[in-house]
């Protein structure tokens, strides 16, 4: 009885004029230190990766043919780093190509004398691209099929959800290899493969929200006004099912970065000399136990910190949008 009473006592709490959903989410997110740290990491990651991408887009095409990359102004170099990430220098330091961190090379140099910091920075761009392309593709497929599946139900639903099950059940690496053979080689195709592979999670997540939202009276109201199904799905249903999707996006980008690294580690992703965090880790792992720790450490740290940032922000966002956790 006592527990009973206490459990339901919350019903009596006074209702205060509600904030808009966004303002309310932000107010509660602000209280979560870990999520804020995650947000800061994400912002830094986006800035670094974004500037790299812009530099890359502006770079080679507009550059004069004569100057070497290092001689061009930074925005035309194709990379935003102190050194050419792919340019080796066998006399990088007194000991030959491999040098520990120093003032000249903050994170040291690798076995070809390449600047580790420069390589890790350029790899940020790859991670950003994989995040955007893979999650973008997954969202495009998932948020078209998910709402349609949930809204229409019945046979449509069964077909879409069985397809999703197949995607869930398929061995990951095998699937990427399969798609790679269809799309052809190239690291962007790896991203597309990751995207195609992960739509099912978004579709299933969204379908669940759609099932509950489509019961709500404002959807009936739209139907009573004569709105078409597509209008109802994409104007009335979808915007109201997005909160969990935002969380999934944050988590999904982290996951895609991790997947790309794993694929690169296995040699499916980036091809030398281009760097991604995963390919750097494969490349450098043998040197770690020889005492040349810096090569492996920094890309690993970058990977862990970035993925941690996305996941802790995603977690925080989920807590902040979960009505069950509202105080």
């Amino acid at each position, binding site marked *: 009885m*006592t527990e009973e009473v206490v459990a339901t006592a919350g019903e009596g*709490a006074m209702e205060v004029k509600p904030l808009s959903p966004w303002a309310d989410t932000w107010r509660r997110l602000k209280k979560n230190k870990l999520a804020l740290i995650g947000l800061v990491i994400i912002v830094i990651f986006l800035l670094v990766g974004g500037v790299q991408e812009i530099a890359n887009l502006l770079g080679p095409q507009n550059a004069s043919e004569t100057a070497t990359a290092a001689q061009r102004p930074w925005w035309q170099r194709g990379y935003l780093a102190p050194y050419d990430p792919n340019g080796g220098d066998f006399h990088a330091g007194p000991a030959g190509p491999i040098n520990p961190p120093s003032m000249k090379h903050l994170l040291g140099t690798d076995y070809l004398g390449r600047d580790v910091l420069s390589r890790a920075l350029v790899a940020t761009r790859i991670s950003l691209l994989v995040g955007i392309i893979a999650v973008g593709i997954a969202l495009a497929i998932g948020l078209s099929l998910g709402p349609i599946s949930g809204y229409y139900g019945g046979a449509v639903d069964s077909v879409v959800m069985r397809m999703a099950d197949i995607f869930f059940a398929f061995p990951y690496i095998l699937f990427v290899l399969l798609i790679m053979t269809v799309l052809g080689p190239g690291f962007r195709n790896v991203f597309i493969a990751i995207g195609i592979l992960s739509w099912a999670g978004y579709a299933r997540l969204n379908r669940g929200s759609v099932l509950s939202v489509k019961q709500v009276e404002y959807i009936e109201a739209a139907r009573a006004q004569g709105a078409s199904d597509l209008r109802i799905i994409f104007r009335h249903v979808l915007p109201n099912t997005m909160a969990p999707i935002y969380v999934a996006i944050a988590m999904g980008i982290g996951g895609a970065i991790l997947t790309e690294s794993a694929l690169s580690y296995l040699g499916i992703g980036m091809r030398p000399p281009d760097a991604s965090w995963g390919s750097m880790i494969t490349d450098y792992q043998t040197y770690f136990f020889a005492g040349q720790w810096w090569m492996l450490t920094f890309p690993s740290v970058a990977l862990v910190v970035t993925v941690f940032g996305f996941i802790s922000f995603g977690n925080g966002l989920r807590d902040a949008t979960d009505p069950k956790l509202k105080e």
Partner: protein
Amino acid sequence: MDELLLDVQDLSTHFMTHAGVVKAVNGVSFTLHRNETVGIVGESGSGKTVAALSLLRLVPDPPGKIVEGKILLKGRDLREVSNEEIRAVRGNDIAMIFQDPMTSLNPVFKVGMQIAEAIMLHQDKSRRDAWRIAAELLAKVGIPDAESRVNQYPFEFSGGMRQRAMIAMAISCNPDILIADEPTTALDVTIQAQIIDVVREMQAQYNSGVILITHDLGVVAEIADKVMVMYGGRTVEYGPIDEIFYNPHHPYTWGLLGSLPRLDLVEKERLTPIKGQPPDLLMLPPGCPFSGRCGYERPDECPLTMPDTEIVGPEHGVRCWIPNDERVSARSALPRFVARSK
């Protein structure tokens, strides 16, 4: 007069929210005697439920806090007692029935088990005895075939039967006071009639005092002896049932009565609603909370200070700045009261 069970004096419960202090209950006083039913009437946000929860110190803290007043249960101030003691009071001396019978029973335990638990918690009874008593109680509140029903889960009960089960749980320890918070609001009208009858029978049998919290003046007219009308956390009027219905003095009480469509009146009169919207609880005026919607207000008095209670009849008090004679003449101009003053 029967024994005085509960004497609430100047009770105030506030909620500290991120947006400011919500004065949910603000200086509320009332008494409850044995065999008496007090109706607390108000709309959503009036503070009626918080007032009831405060009596058992069930307001979640934080954000809620009882900031002032006395809650005297047979002379003992419940604000002063230990957590241990208040737990003993809950269920034993004061029991509560909630509005939503769908959520107030735990879905994973058998109904009999939940009642038996309550009995074992407060009384020195064996498990066997507690189950037997649970079955008896279910039979007492009118559940047919109670012997087998104790072994069922809440989902096997209809809404009305769950509310009966809640009542059975509430009376399991012979409480002196039964607080019923909107006990019939979630139920259909024919089931509502059954539940009201059960509450009435149980009260007669156990000689308890009942506090009935409701927005429905019809239910109040049916079973209450005394009524307290709340608005924006304040008691605006209280008195015996007939006084409140036939000689109401507060403009809010008139508004409530005038807003109701009546089943029993032959001619269709136009309703006289209360103007405006319910108050924003964060921005209540220091004075009368009804002053924005009243229509008779004096701008330099009403919103600024809350008037003291004026006694206008036997046990009938009102808190309003309008002088008594002006109130009476203003009231007689209202359509609902023209019809009645014949």
